């Protein structure tokens, strides 16, 4: 009887915790929607998304986030191009090729990378990478989308590496043995069996990595130059959606148009992340 009561209580506590998490998410989302939609009503969705100029403090103020969206996408794309191949190959090396001693060292280093706070990465990027980019490429400023991509690529790598490595490692060894027994070489086995079987996990790793990149704020704020203009190349300064919210939230009037515009940006960000997750999900389910 006693144990039944304990069971009951613990069950309810777990239930409560789960429900609270859901309720919070719904509340946050609702708040975002409320403020965002209030802004859309006043300013117009089309003007907001496709407006070229983000001048919140001029008169009349203009709140076009097109350049910010391009900035975010450009930096994210650059980071993905850097981090995805690097990350997957590192994961393969750690999981399949590295001798045991090296594997353990590499794993701890990758985990250590994940533990570096983003503001530290941004700071290091600002004082080392930015001048380097400027002098090597001989451009007016090193604060560019390119620098942002490198720093963010560096940040996405640990996520991609450690989750892909788990996925690669959880491929049953019998698959590999079966392929070897058919006369496949190590590389053929990795390419056609291991990678194929681990693909859903690798895609999930990439999506999580990209998710981290697109939501990242501090590091990009520090190295991308924060110019709210549509970039003509990856070597131009850009400003991202996240950096705008972080930099301007402190100077807005609560309930004002500018304040609500920032919530509008939040909604745009949310939509992009949601789309990425949704596409990833579609892809994962198709694989099965």
């Amino acid at each position, binding site marked *: 009887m006693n144990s039944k009561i304990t069971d009951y209580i613990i069950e309810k506590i777990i239930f409560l915790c789960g429900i609270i998490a859901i309720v919070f998410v719904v509340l946050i989302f609702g708040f975002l929607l409320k403020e965002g939609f209030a802004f859309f009503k006043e300013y117009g969705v089309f003007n907001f998304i496709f407006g070229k100029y983000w001048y919140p403090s001029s008169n009349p103020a203009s709140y076009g986030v097109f350049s910010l969206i391009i900035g975010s996408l450009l930096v994210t794309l650059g980071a993905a191009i850097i981090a995805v191949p690097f990350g997957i190959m590192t994961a393969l090396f750690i999981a399949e090729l590295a001798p045991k001693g090296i594997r353990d060292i590499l794993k701890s280093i990758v985990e250590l990378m994940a533990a570096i706070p983003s503001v530290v990465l941004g700071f290091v990027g600002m004082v080392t990478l930015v001048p380097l980019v400027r002098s090597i490429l001989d451009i007016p400023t090193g604060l560019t989308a390119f620098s942002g991509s490198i720093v963010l690529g560096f940040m996405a790598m640990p996520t991609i590496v450690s989750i892909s490595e788990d996925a690669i490692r959880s491929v049953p060894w*019998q698959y590999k043995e079966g392929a070897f027994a*058919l*006369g496949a070489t190590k590389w053929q086995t990795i390419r056609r069996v291991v990678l194929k079987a681990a693909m859903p996990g690798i895609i999930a790793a990439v999506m999580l990595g990209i998710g981290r990149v697109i939501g990242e704020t501090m590091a990009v704020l520090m190295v991308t130059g924060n110019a709210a203009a549509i970039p003509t190349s990856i070597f131009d300064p850009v400003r991202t959606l996240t950096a705008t919210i972080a930099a301007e939230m402190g100077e807005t009037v609560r309930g004002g148009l500018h304040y609500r515009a920032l919530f509008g940006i939040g909604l745009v960000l949310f939509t992009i992340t949601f789309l990425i997750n949704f596409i990833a999900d579609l892809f994962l389910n198709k694989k099965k």
Partner: protein
Amino acid sequence: MVDKIKVENLSCFYSGKQVLKNLSLTVKANEILSIIGPSNSGKTSFLRTLNRMNDMNVYFSRKGNIFLDDDNIFDMNPEKLRTRIGMLFAMPIPLPMSIYDNIAYAPRVLGLKNKKNMDEVVEQSLRDASLWDEVKDRLNSSAIKMSGGQQQRLCIARILAIEPEVILFDEPCSGLDPISTAKVEEAMLKLKEKYTIVLVTNNVKQASRVGTRTAFFLMGELIEIDKTQNMFLTPKNKTTEDYITGRFG
């Protein structure tokens, strides 16, 4: 009959511990050589040495030689060797792809590109593995969904697709029900006409049903090897008799 595989004074070690002791035997062309013996008698180690699967184990070392048609297998390229000596494992492990792709996998790796030839290879392999009639209408469905016995025959077909000379069976029926087992055995007997087979089995009766000759291993030593009939009717060695009559093991 011709000797297909000749094993000379083979000793194997894992981390220095000896698991096979100075083994010498031959496998004749187009026979099924059954290897029986209790656990830890070195049967599987022997099998995995024959196609050099043990090479990937860093703790493994060996002495002695094995010849496949007069070529020393330890001088050969291991991948090349494994296309001549195929191996089937105890647990059938279909690759996570369709039935067709499972069989086409190895020929593709080895460079067969023509779609029509591939279709022929797939059909012939499935026929030889006595599986064609059961799956011909669903070659594109996932191999993971097949029954255990079908999966095991699929794995046989997969090996046949690379046209090996020798096939090693490592306890192929240990996870199968009697009917599936009978089907796999039927496939084996059919395969004997084209291939040479080495079968490791824990099932003494299976050895008596399909083996042309039978070898009895105990603690890493070859105790007795003879025609299956002779061994089961009049074993020369007392321990062999005890084992096959079920007194131990």
